[in-house]
């Protein structure tokens, strides 16, 4: 009974004044987080052009974010292309226009599914790892140690990760697009019996250069977002091992939301 009372007193609202204060605190935290994240990003970009250039750190991060994510990206791409072909073939057959399935899958992959799914996969794999790594360094005071050694921790830790994301995600996206179209080709031509020449002709017919540009720009933006959010959450971790876990989760969720939100914005601005 005593326990229940205590529980209620902590969870029950603290009156109108308390609620307003609570709301204000949440808003302030969100605004503050946005500001600090942006400042971190500006800092990291600025420091990218300042010596010392630690190229081996960048290469290491590119390998971690790029090469290590390649397998999962290829799988995502090929299966997405196959599923897309299957699904759109069924709908298109109702209109007697199943021959355009190749063009449809290619456009969907290159413009939307390639960049978004690649970014989400890389976010789940590498974004979380970035947050966990930096978070652990923070709570074990390794970052403070770097500072004590007169090494800028942002330049040493954050800049190479953001750069690696910025470079590698669009490249992964391009590879994922191609495997997606290949997967679609396999299902469409070998399984569903669409003419192979028509399939590829429609791919070339529907795709425009601006579609490829759009996919690449999206990949670069998403790569920057997922590494930045991971780095920010890890860099500002507090509260020991529990804090590291929380930072990792928050980083993945927030990066995923921001990726989808920015995807919408880029699509809208690209059309207009």
């Amino acid at each position: 009974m005593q326990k229940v009372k205590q529980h209620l007193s902590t969870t029950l609202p603290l009156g109108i004044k308390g609620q307003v204060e609570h709301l204000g605190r949440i808003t302030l935290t969100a605004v503050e987080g946005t500001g600090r994240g942006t400042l971190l990003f500006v800092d990291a970009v600025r420091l990218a052009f300042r010596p010392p250039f630690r190229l081996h750190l960048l290469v290491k991060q590119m390998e971690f974010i790029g090469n290590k994510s390649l397998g999962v990206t290829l799988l995502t791409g090929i299966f997405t292309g196959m599923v897309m072909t299957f699904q759109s073939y069924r709908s298109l057959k109702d209109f007697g226009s199943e021959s355009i399935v190749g063009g449809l899958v290619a456009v969907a992959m290159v413009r939307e599914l390639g960049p978004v799914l690649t970014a989400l996969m890389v976010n789940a794999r590498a974004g979380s790892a970035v947050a966990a790594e930096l978070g652990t360094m923070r709570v074990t005071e390794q970052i403070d140690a770097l500072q004590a050694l007169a090494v800028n921790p942002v330049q040493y830790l954050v800049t190479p990760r953001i750069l690696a994301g910025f470079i590698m995600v669009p490249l992964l996206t391009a590879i994922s697009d191609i495997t997606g179209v290949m997967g679609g080709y396999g299902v469409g031509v070998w399984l569903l019996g669409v003419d192979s020449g028509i399939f590829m002709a429609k791919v070339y017919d529907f795709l425009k250069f601006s579609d490829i540009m759009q996919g690449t720009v999206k990949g670069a933006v998403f790569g920057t977002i997922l590494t930045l959010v991971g780095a920010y959450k890890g860099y500002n971790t507090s509260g020991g091992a529990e804090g590291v876990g929380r930072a990792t989760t928050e980083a993945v969720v927030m990066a995923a939301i921001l990726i989808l939100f920015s995807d919408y914005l880029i699509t809208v601005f690209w059309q207009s």
Partner: protein
Amino acid sequence: MKNLSTEIRVGLLVLAGIGSIVMGSVAVTGWRPGSGDTYKVTIQMDNASGLLVGSPAQVAGIKIGEVSAIDLEDGKAKVELAINNRYKLYADTMASLKSIGILGDKYIDVNPGTSSQAPLSDGGMISRTESGSDLDSMVGNANDILKELKGILGHLATFTESLAKDGPHITQDLRSILSDNKDSLDSSFKRLDSTLGNLDSITGKIDKGEGSLGKLVNDETTVEELNNALMGINSYLSDVTRLKLDIGLRAERLNQQQTYKSYLSFKLQPLKERFYMVELVDNPRGKVSSRTISTTTGGGAALETKETVTSQQMQWSLLIGQRYFDTLVQGGLIENHFGMGVNQYFGRADKYSIGLDVWDLGGEFGPHAKLSGLWRFYSGAFLVMGADDFASTNPKLRDAFFGVGINFNEDSLRPLFGSLPLSTISGP
């Protein structure tokens, strides 16, 4: 893979990624014949709806180039095509806008012309265009039809409205007139029998070409001259207005009076269901009145005799008629007196009709009523018979009549001038 350094592995991935982007871009952009060796030709089109920059130009279904620019010039679409150098177009090239499938994209269909003509060079112009029979024009045609249909329905609505308003009155009036005059009708019909006998002799006379009516019917030159004159009048009138003119000639034999009554009528029809008629009637009976003559005989006794006098042999009818479906109502001046009438048509092309006209309501012997049946055995000629003045209080005036008539209008001129385009007679 293990023995490859990190740098090499990253480098391979970067190269693969960049390679993918470049490969895709080249495949997408370099595929089109629009880039590379092309020459430009322009087309002036009335309609370039749905056409985009990059839309294909095809000859016999083979892509030879694409639309490189679309612009508006002097209210027409100026479409510029980039044609691959491998394909030649000639001076008599024809281009048309077509669509792939019913919802498909638009493309320019090119007929490259004949090789005997000079080939088109860069900056050349395709002057011959053709509007394809695609969905757009089909929808356009359907739109026109619907517009006309709407107008027709509008007319129909007003038509039925006025019919619903006037119809019951007309039938009621007709019924009351018929029942009021049942007796006189009976006696009139009896006389009709003898009238029929006389009809034989009249038609026989006409057939032989006797009399002016016979001449008119039988003599080709008379008919032709009359028709030429009518054509002139008709074309003149149709230039001024679009009135239809119908000229009628009619002769009636009054059985008891043993006289002939002739009519010359000009009927103007501004609308199909309305007419204005001016009719000149040569009426031997004329206006009938009675006067008392006193004659003094030798015996000194004055003998009073009553005799009927006829006057006014030439009479006028001015009528306005309105037709509701197969019922015609007319009113105005009939033989110098106000009156009105109802006509009911039967059969195809109004072959038969029954009519009742009543006028001279204040006449000395009561209103003059005339019941007539008409048989239009030929589009320009008819037979008529009936009972004249059957409601008269003076039994001498009750009479049966029969007659023949001809009338000239567009319909009757058509068989005579079958090969002549009628638009020259009656205008558009």
